[in-house]
């Protein structure tokens, strides 16, 4: 059924009103970002219409700005560490939810997924209190722990979804052929989850790079990129911010396109494998 065109042959022309509405909603979603990009080249800085004096000045200023790049490096460190933590804990968590039954499983599931829906302030504050009580000094490490905790839910959700698509029979075959559980995990389960894991990693990376609510409370002396930008915003708008925002936008765009291609490619391959012959 998936290879067929949309099965409502007679309703193929969308009503004009709905189409126009959809276009305007897309416009609403994108216009601010487009304005941002355009104005990052604006000679007169932010604001003023129409934009004049297209220039790369702001980008030049940006590249000379040491503090920004330090914060970028910090953010990258945090992001990769967060990926490591989230995956290392998220994959077992997904397996546990899929295959194990234990008292408190429902509570466990809710706790794991909670940071996804809770506003960051609550996660951030509660962790702050934990570190305070434990006497820990705030810094990059605490931010890493915060991101890792918040983003386990992302890893768990993605991997869990991947587990549903996994053919249980493959693992059974592996056990049948003599491999033990650990070997089966490495040779059969993990390779099949490759797509989910990569997808999760991309998502975690992007979310961590952008994370500000939780980081806000756990920050020490070192800034991550969003916090660095935030600090400058509090002091006033500089057009540099437009430039860095534009760069972030295109970078995120690239990442999500990669993620999407990966996912669609894999889905198409599994569909082709399962597809029967011709339409009736």
């Amino acid at each position, binding site marked *: 059924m998936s290879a067929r*065109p949309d*099965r*409502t*042959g*007679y309703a193929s022309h969308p009503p004009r009103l709905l189409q126009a509405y959809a276009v305007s909603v897309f416009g609403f979603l994108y216009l601010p970002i487009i304005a941002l990009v355009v104005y990052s080249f604006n000679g007169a800085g932010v604001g003023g219409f129409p934009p004049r004096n297209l220039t790369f000045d702001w980008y030049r200023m940006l590249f000379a700005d040491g503090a920004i790049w330090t914060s970028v490096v910090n953010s990258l460190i945090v992001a990769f560490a967060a990926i490591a933590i989230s995956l290392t804990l998220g994959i077992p968590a997904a397996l546990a939810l899929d295959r194990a039954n234990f008292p408190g499983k429902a509570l466990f599931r809710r706790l794991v997924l909670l940071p996804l829906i809770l506003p960051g302030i609550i996660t951030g504050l509660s962790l702050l209190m934990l570190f305070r009580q434990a006497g820990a000094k705030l810094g990059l490490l605490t931010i890493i722990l915060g991101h890792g905790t918040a983003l386990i839910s992302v890893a768990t959700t993605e991997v869990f979804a991947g587990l549903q698509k996994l053919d249980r029979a493959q693992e059974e075959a592996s056990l049948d052929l003599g491999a033990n559980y650990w070997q089966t995990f490495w040779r059969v389960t993990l390779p099949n989850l490759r797509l989910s894991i990569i997808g999760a990693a991309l998502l975690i990376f992007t979310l961590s790079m952008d994370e500000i609510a939780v980081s806000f409370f756990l920050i020490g002396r070192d800034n991550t990129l969003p916090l660095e930008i935030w600090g400058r915003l509090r002091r006033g708008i500089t057009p540099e911010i437009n430039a860095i925002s534009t760069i972030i936008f295109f970078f995120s765009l690239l990442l999500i396109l990669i993620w999407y291609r990966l996912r669609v490619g894999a889905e198409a391959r599994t569909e082709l494998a399962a597809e029967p*012959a*011709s*339409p*009736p």
Partner: protein
Amino acid sequence: MNVANDSQSETQLTMTPTPENPPGTQLLVIRKIAKSFGKKPVLRDVSLSVAEGEFLTILGESGSGKTTLLRIIAGFENADSGEILMASENLLRLPPYKRRVNTVFQQYALFPHLSVSENVGYGLRVAKLSKAEIRARVDEALAMVKMSAYANAKPSKISGGQQQRVALARALVNRPRLLLLDEPLSALDASLRRDMQQELKSLQREIGISFVFVTHDQEEAMVISDRIALLRQGELEQIASPREIYNRPATSYTAQFIGHTNLLRAEVKDRLARCGSLSWPVNLADGPAVFSVRPENIREGTAARADAISFRGTVLNQAFHGATDLLCVQAKDGLIFVIRLASSKGIASEASFEFSTSDAIPVRDSAQANDERGS
């Protein structure tokens, strides 16, 4: 060369695919419907008609276009060309919700958030009938399909067979002029299927409206239909009653698709058909010809009568089918026959078999028909 028309049989003419007159008045006339999905043609100028009160089955393999044809009648697909007339009105101009046609879907398509009686009454509510009338007709419809006890159940709580009855009631309650059924029994298991076939048949007789039933199962088609329309690769191969289509198949494809058969490819010269070591008199012009012989028409014997042909052969395989055995026999000249005999244990490994020349039905060669398709 039209082999079929020169058939030596004098009783019934084999029907060639044209919109002929079915018994009774014509409810639906389908004229030259063509449809392609992208570059792939799915229906090629199909024409047929449906009589009032008849049970017509559209039979075919997957890819034959049968479901597409049904969906065009229902209104879920648009045809590329052609027309469909019902009561002199071109149905294709109307959206599906304005046609006096209702459908029973393959996966039933019951609305999961409505109860059984709410499902059945859906069309009546849309038509804004009074509450009392709706209740009366819904009760009547549920009683007809024996689902009255489940009126308040949700679809997820009833079995597949029960869902199918509800789907039937939901369609029939609107008193359509034509009921379309898209392989409704394919999801049921064998014995339930057989029961439902009988129920559908008696229901249709009782209500009296026309049913157009789509299936790929030729046995099912034979059991329930008044007429069968066999589709092949988007074209109408033959349309006739089950008995007719079985006894007088028009083409080799029909002969093979419906029931078992033996196809003899013979050469006719001077009014004699020759196939391997067999030869028999025929009333046909010279040239190649194909004959269909049904397995049950071959019996043990040595052709003592003039109008019979016999051959000696080795029994390769004997399969037990309950009341009959199906034998696979290789004749001396290498021809392989499938023969159906009353079940017995004692067939010698080599025996003589015979069949009447009148049981060798000439059919159009479907492979040849393929070449002619260009016109």
